[in-house]
């Protein structure tokens, strides 16, 4: 592909058309699932590629009510909301302590958390399962909170620590002189300043937790405690030949992710890739 060819008008057109075709191909698998979920089973069996003749939402009803998707939905929502709230709270506390005070173990604790970003956490499912069984933490409504919070902690601590560092310490001192307590300073002054970093943390934690699979697979066994990804694998066993209902279930499970992605894709792409460039 030479520059000269690109300079020509028709060349530009061909180039853009090719790129568009590539992007469409990239997203087509998902689009196929979405529009097929609106077809009836017979329509899909007859021709699995064509667009639906008439939109119908029966598959969604079937997946949500008969397939008990609502159960997994509630469980995923509970786990995700709890994890996001606790992760923001804990990482903010740790980041504040690490960025504002000097004490003996400061560097040690900082590295201790950062190492967590290098440990391949999914290798931990087997030992964690054994440990949870022994401590009686297996299969409780709070079981998944612990691993979800712990594996999400390092990145937010890293992000917030470096963010708070950019806020001048004079601000804290001035607030103290005016008689502000530490908790007032943290919640009323620093927290609002950290909003951009916290927004990124909330979004990334939400996505990771909503999509998490291996921990949920091994640490809980009651139907009502299973999260959406595990629910989908159950669902698959139950509705194996019912493709359109399965597709509706899949679309339901990715709807929140899609909404968040469309609203915040800039923050998401930046948050997931920014760290790598500096090396």
């Amino acid at each position, binding site marked *: 592909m030479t520059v000269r060819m690109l300079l020509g008008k028709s060349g530009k057109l061909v180039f853009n058309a090719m790129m568009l075709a590539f992007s469409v191909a990239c997203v087509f698998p998902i689009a196929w699932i979405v529009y097929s979920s609106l077809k009836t089973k017979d329509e899909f069996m007859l021709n699995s590629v064509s667009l639906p003749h008439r939109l119908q939402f029966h598959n969604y009803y079937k997946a949500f009510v008969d397939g008990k998707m609502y159960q997994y939905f509630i469980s995923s929502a509970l786990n995700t909301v709890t994890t996001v709230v606790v992760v923001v709270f804990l990482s903010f506390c740790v980041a504040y302590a690490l960025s504002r005070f000097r004490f003996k173990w400061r560097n040690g604790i900082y590295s201790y958390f950062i190492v967590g970003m290098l440990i*391949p956490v999914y*290798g931990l499912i087997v030992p964690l399962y054994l440990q949870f069984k022994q401590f009686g933490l297996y299969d409780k409504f709070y079981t998944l909170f612990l691993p979800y919070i712990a594996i999400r902690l390092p990145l937010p601590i890293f992000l917030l620590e470096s963010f708070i560092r950019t806020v001048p310490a004079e601000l804290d001192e001035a607030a103290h002189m005016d008689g502000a307590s530490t908790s007032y300073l943290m919640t009323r002054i620093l927290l609002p300043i950290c909003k951009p970093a916290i927004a990124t943390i909330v979004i990334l934690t939400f996505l990771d937790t909503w999509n998490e699979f291996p921990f949920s697979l091994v640490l809980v066994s009651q139907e009502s405690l299973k999260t959406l990804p595990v629910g*989908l694998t159950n669902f698959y066993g139950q509705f194996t030949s019912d493709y359109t209902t399965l597709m509706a279930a899949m679309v339901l499970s990715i709807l929140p992710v899609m909404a968040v992605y469309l609203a915040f894709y800039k923050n998401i792409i930046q948050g997931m890739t920014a760290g790598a460039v500096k*090396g």
Partner: protein
Amino acid sequence: MSRSSSLKITRVGLLGLLAPSVAIYTFVIIVPLALSFYYSLTDWVGGPTKNYIGFRNYSLLVHDSLFWHSFKNNMIILALTLIIQMSLAFLLTTLFMSKALRLKELHRTVIFFPVVLSAVVVGFVWQMIYSHDYGILNSILRSIGLESAIRPWLDDPKIVIYSVTVPLIWQYLGIPLMIFVSAVHGIPKDIYESCELDGCTGFKKARYITFPLIYDTIKVVVMLCISSNMLVFSHIYVMTGGGPGTSSMVMAQYAYKTSFGSMQLGYGSAVTIGMFVISFGIVLIFKRLAEVRV
């Protein structure tokens, strides 16, 4: 930092801020690592007794052909992902830098989208794409007259490992791409301009300017790619469960199967530790090799 020391906090206050996080993090990430090593030195099969057997599990592991078969599959996935995903990402990056490309925002949003989907959903989507009667892959092949190319994509032991790699490449293409794009954006424009004055064209620009200048970023991306592909689990669990037979078995799936399928908890822990050591080892080897400048 020097001024911040004038701020006072009590020991108890400091402990209150740090202790909960340190405790939960230690309990979930550090303790299992240590316990896992301990279990790997026992013959535990889930019952009340576990006997210390030294490193016998590890000597079994070294001679376990199924483990090495899984390792080989991890390496095939890694090699294919590195070659295809990296070159595709690099090619797309140069296209993204071109002034002729319109709708950049749309392209980048669309190509990155699969990254945020769960591995389970991606596994199911591709299982349906590969489906014999209803999958779009076979429909497309039929419509362009390539019926002879139709295969049982996930059931043929010879090709299944390639079939399960494609979704991985597809899903995560956006990550190296967007990392490269932002790295290339960081390259000063005048370097390109003076190069153009010297008569540099597309390929030469990419080879002699872009590539060397983002070399460090490429290293980071390759390391990310290695560590995530050595531990791939969910996609394969959903698509094939390691099958047919053991033809798409990977290390993480094997550790899961020995521990939960046959309750060999001691040996399963040894597999987990072995997997850690191998993937860290490969990252380290790569780091050493990559220090040689291009």
